[in-house]
């Protein structure tokens, strides 16, 4: 018994130590002369990780199959344009971008939460299409040769290098992980789990269904928006066609499903695979997307709980067999 308890304590400590060490190591990467290509991979990893985590929060934990992340990313990107063209600093653009995306999420929650199941999915798929067309005609910053289909440059980022982009992305990725942990361990997380299983049962046991979903949606909106704004700081320009593109749904969805929906580690594993494939096959253009599509279909058919869910189930079986064998 004593040995067991000691082991538990040391496990708890190592649980805290390991992530802290990992974060510190990741943070000093740019200083110790890591190749820029690696930093670039990790930059994309953290941006897509933040997106995937938030998509998992919505689709996996809140029962909101949200097909419109591009709306939040694009809006935050254009907010960044407005902020930086008014000679305000870029980090303000990230925060305001996140706030605008969160506010927009709250706004579209009112009509879209009335829709159920597939209607919600398609209803949210329409939103980026609407916004893209809005930004084709509406110029937030008027002028010739800018706005519309041509898009905008992001101003005020001349002094920044990959190191800063990397740190910004790292912070977003870590924040998204922490947000997931906090939300899932809070009353909100419990309410969301109840709603996902049955919204009527949840409502009758005193969970405010609309409000719980709304909170999840707004939180996801902020993080997705901030991640999007950071991506456009790195990219340096934004056009409606690309900002509201389906790729902003593709990466989080594919990463979450491959890794494992409704698991906290799933998006981490999935994003690793997606980003790895993306850079491994970047020479061959669209090939990585093709492979991702094939993997997505195969995973969903064979192991719908995703890689993490699958491994967890298998090890659980293994552990219980081990326990049966070792006890007495």
């Amino acid at each position, binding site marked *: 018994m004593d040995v067991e308890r000691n082991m538990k304590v040391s496990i708890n400590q190592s649980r805290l130590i390991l992530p802290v060490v990992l974060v510190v190591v990741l943070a000093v990467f740019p200083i110790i002369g890591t190749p820029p290509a690696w930093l670039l991979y990790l930059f994309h990893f953290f941006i897509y990780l933040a997106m995937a985590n938030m998509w998992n929060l919505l689709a996996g934990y809140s029962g909101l199959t949200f097909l419109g992340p591009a709306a939040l990313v694009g809006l935050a990107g254009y907010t960044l344009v407005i902020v930086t063209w008014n000679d305000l600093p870029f980090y303000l653009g990230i925060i305001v971008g996140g706030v605008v995306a969160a506010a927009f999420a709250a706004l579209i929650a009112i009509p879209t939460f009335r829709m159920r199941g597939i209607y919600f999915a*398609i209803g949210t*798929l329409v939103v980026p*299409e609407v916004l893209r067309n809005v930004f084709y*005609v509406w110029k937030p910053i008027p002028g010739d040769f800018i706005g519309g289909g041509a898009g905008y440059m992001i101003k005020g980022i001349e002094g920044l290098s990959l190191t800063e982009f990397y740190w910004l992305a790292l912070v977003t990725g870590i924040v998204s992980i922490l947000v997931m942990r906090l939300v899932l361990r809070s009353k909100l997380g419990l309410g969301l789990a109840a709603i996902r299983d049955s919204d009527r049962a949840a409502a009758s046991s005193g969970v405010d269904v609309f409000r719980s979903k709304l909170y999840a949606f707004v939180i996801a909106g902020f993080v997705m928006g901030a991640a999007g704004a950071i991506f456009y700081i790195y990219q340096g320009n934004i056009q409606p066609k690309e900002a509201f593109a389906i790729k902003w749904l593709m990466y989080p969805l*594919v990463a979450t499903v491959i890794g494992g929906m409704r698991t906290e580690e799933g998006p981490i594993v999935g994003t690793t695979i997606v980003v790895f494939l993306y850079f491994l096959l970047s020479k061959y253009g669209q090939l990585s997307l*093709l492979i991702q*599509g094939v993997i997505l279909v195969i995973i*969903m058919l064979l192991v719908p709980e995703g890689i993490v869910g699958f491994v967890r189930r298998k090890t659980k079986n293994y552990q219980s067999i081990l326990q049966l064998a070792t006890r007495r």
Partner: protein
Amino acid sequence: MSVEVLGDLFRPIIMGVLLGGLFALIALGLSMVFGVMKLINVAHGDLMIFGAYFAYALMTAWGIDPILSLTMGIPLWFGLGFAIQKYIMSRAFGISMEAPLIIAFGISLILQSLAQIIWSPYNRGLEAPYALGYISLGITSVPRTYLLSFIAALVVMLVLREFLRRSYLGKAIIAASQDRRGAELVGINTGRVYAFAFAIAMATAAVAGVFFGLTFTFTPTSGVGYLVIAFGVIIIGGLGSMLGTFIGGIVLGLTQTLSGHFLGAAWQMLFVYLIVFVVLAVRPQGIFGR
């Protein structure tokens, strides 16, 4: 003054009605799969665009007329649909609520990237000598492609309606869509019926793809927008009614041409998507629906 305004409006109204036929044609397959299996095939738009690319490949490689290429396209898409339903989708239903949606999304991803690898992301279009230029309709003239698409939509709808009403398989499809267990009790193999329904839906997507390609240019990612429009058509028109689908198509077609007429071409798609969104938010069961 009113006569002049009306005269001006004739063209966008007629164009809108004709365009509505094309929208209805695109929505037909989506509506069928939705009605029978309660599944929104998110890959429908991409399968339609892929049909356009198939005709494009035959046209550029051997100079085969796009409409004539349907003699190959329809059976191929029919088989493709049958296989997708039989080997992939039928399993997805048993897994979870969102599994069919995600798998259809995966198929859409595969088709989009395949189209980009093979045909590049640039705009492509289908051409046929008889589809060029304008045709006079008495009061005004319209592009020939619009009229062709409208006629094709009418033909496909009539054929499909007669098929559903008269053939055994058609009746079985309707029975399975109304009550799956009831259909099974009277000896209908619903698994097989589902596969045929999906196959027929895909065949209409092949037809829609060709007429779409003759009317507009397309890129590998055009499918998403038209999936949304097709969904809007069946929401406005309500499920299970061909006439409703046609009306839904015409509503969105008129939205596009009239907003283009009054506000300029840049605004027209914005209004189409907005209408779809508003209808979804206000009346998800459809305006003409049951």
